[in-house]
């Protein structure tokens, strides 16, 4: 079923362990502020890498570098084509759910009927059957994030950059979407960079958790998570990873490692 749903993923695949995202000693400054300082980070094909850090640790900057929206001041960024999923869904209110999901196809020149047909199948996949014609303002926050994720998937890029995708949601919806994302990624595996300041979210979803220090953003810890997904938030390893990440954040001076504040962060 997944085969006719997924957009063709581009490019030859040399090997499963080939890094699809590779940042080497990346530094990015904005005037007097150093957002990222010598950050080295790799993501293998279909690996889910969570990047955690307090506000001001340059997490969003990191994603924009990977997406090619910014260039590093020093170091190198090499990445397969990456699509951004911003914290605020940025759905277009003049399109219905289907139209929003189909947007990347339309931008690639796919005809309206065909684009909507493919988006239709994917919306069913992400649990939005029956809401295809719903206006954006008729959808709940969780549904909107699902549409936004469907849109991200349909772009057909091998790398997904998720910037606090569940940051604006309540805890219950967020937990629900964690399970949902795990399922969807099992069916449609992609390389994922997940930026969050929720350490538990990172431990539940990621294969590897990268901890950034605030201003300047430096990698202060990298923690692998071995337990296969789906993993409950109460799993021993999740709890342990969460604790280690929080320790690393505290040591780095992160003031709000486990905080679940919904606010965005600059840069």
């Amino acid at each position: 079923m997944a085969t006719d749903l997924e957009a063709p993923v581009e490019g030859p695949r040399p090997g499963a362990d080939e890094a699809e995202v590779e940042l080497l000693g990346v530094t990015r400054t904005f005037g007097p502020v150093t957002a990222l300082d010598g950050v080295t980070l790799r993501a293998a094909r279909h690996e889910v890498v969570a990047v955690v850090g307090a506000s001001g640790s340059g997490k969003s900057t990191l994603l924009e570098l990977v997406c090619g929206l910014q260039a590093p001041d020093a170091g190198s960024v090499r990445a397969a084509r990456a699509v951004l999923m911003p914290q605020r869904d940025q759905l277009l209110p003049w399109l219905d759910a289907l139209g929003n999901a189909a947007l990347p196809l339309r931008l690639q020149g796919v005809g309206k009927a065909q684009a909507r047909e493919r988006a239709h199948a994917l919306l069913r996949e992400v649990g939005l059957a029956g809401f295809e014609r719903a206006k954006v303002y008729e959808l709940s926050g969780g549904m909107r994030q699902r549409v936004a994720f469907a849109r991200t998937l349909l772009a057909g890029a091998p790398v997904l950059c998720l910037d606090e995708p569940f940051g604006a949601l309540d805890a219950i919806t967020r937990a629900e979407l964690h399970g949902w994302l795990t399922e969807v990624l099992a069916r449609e595996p992609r390389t994922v960079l997940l930026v969050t300041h929720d350490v538990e979210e990172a431990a539940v979803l990621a294969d590897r958790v990268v901890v950034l220090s605030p201003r300047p953003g430096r990698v202060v810890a990298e923690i692998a998570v071995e337990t296969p997904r789906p993993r409950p938030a109460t799993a021993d390893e999740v709890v342990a990873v969460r604790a280690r990440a929080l320790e690393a954040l505290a040591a780095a001076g992160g003031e709000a490692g486990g905080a679940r504040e919904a606010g965005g962060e600059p840069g």
Partner: protein
Amino acid sequence: MLAALLFLLLLGAWELYARAGNVDDFILPAPTEVGRALYDDRGLLWDNLLVTAQEVVLGLALALVVGAALAIALHFSPLLRRAVYPLLVGSQAIPIVTVAPLLVVWFGYGILPKLVIVALVCFFPIVVTTLDGLRSVEPEQHKLLRTLGASRWQAFRWAEAPAALPAALSGAKIAVAVGGIAAVFAEYAGSEDGLGHLLLQAIPQLETPRAWAAVVVLAALAVCCFALLALAERRLAPWAHRRKDPIP
């Protein structure tokens, strides 16, 4: 509801003052006199309304086309924006009333100078609101569209143009209120018909009730145009009337 009550109250006071104060009709006709003029002169008012309505509607349409095109040009070219925007703002200080006779000299007695004057008065709010609409697309949205592979044109087509549509119509709603006045001035400057022409003739002839009747018709025209634009906005841009961020 309250507005209607207040309106009736004011109307009553006016009626009372005009009758009890024994004021001459040509100074201040009572509302009932105006009402009678509305009825007696209905044919005359209707014919002239059609002329003025045509000027207002076509002038506003012209303003929308020119205003939106200019806003798009200013949006796409920062250089043009820096060069033209101040001039545009300055141009609004030109008293159109005094320019109107010149336009009649240039364009004659037909509908053309009227359209130009109505459009001149109406296009400024349209340019301002349309430009704001085009620029209301968030930087985050632009970033997202870029990663989805959108070209500059596609960003305009999918995000900026739809965002600007309700804004342009809002500008037109502001403009239509003064559009009627512009049409009257244009007719004052030289015309053979229209509500402005009717006013121009009725006042020196001391047909004050008829003049007031023309004003009432003019007001009704503005209200109708406004309501039509509001309706168009609702139909064309229903999203603009919804809350942007429902609770998750």
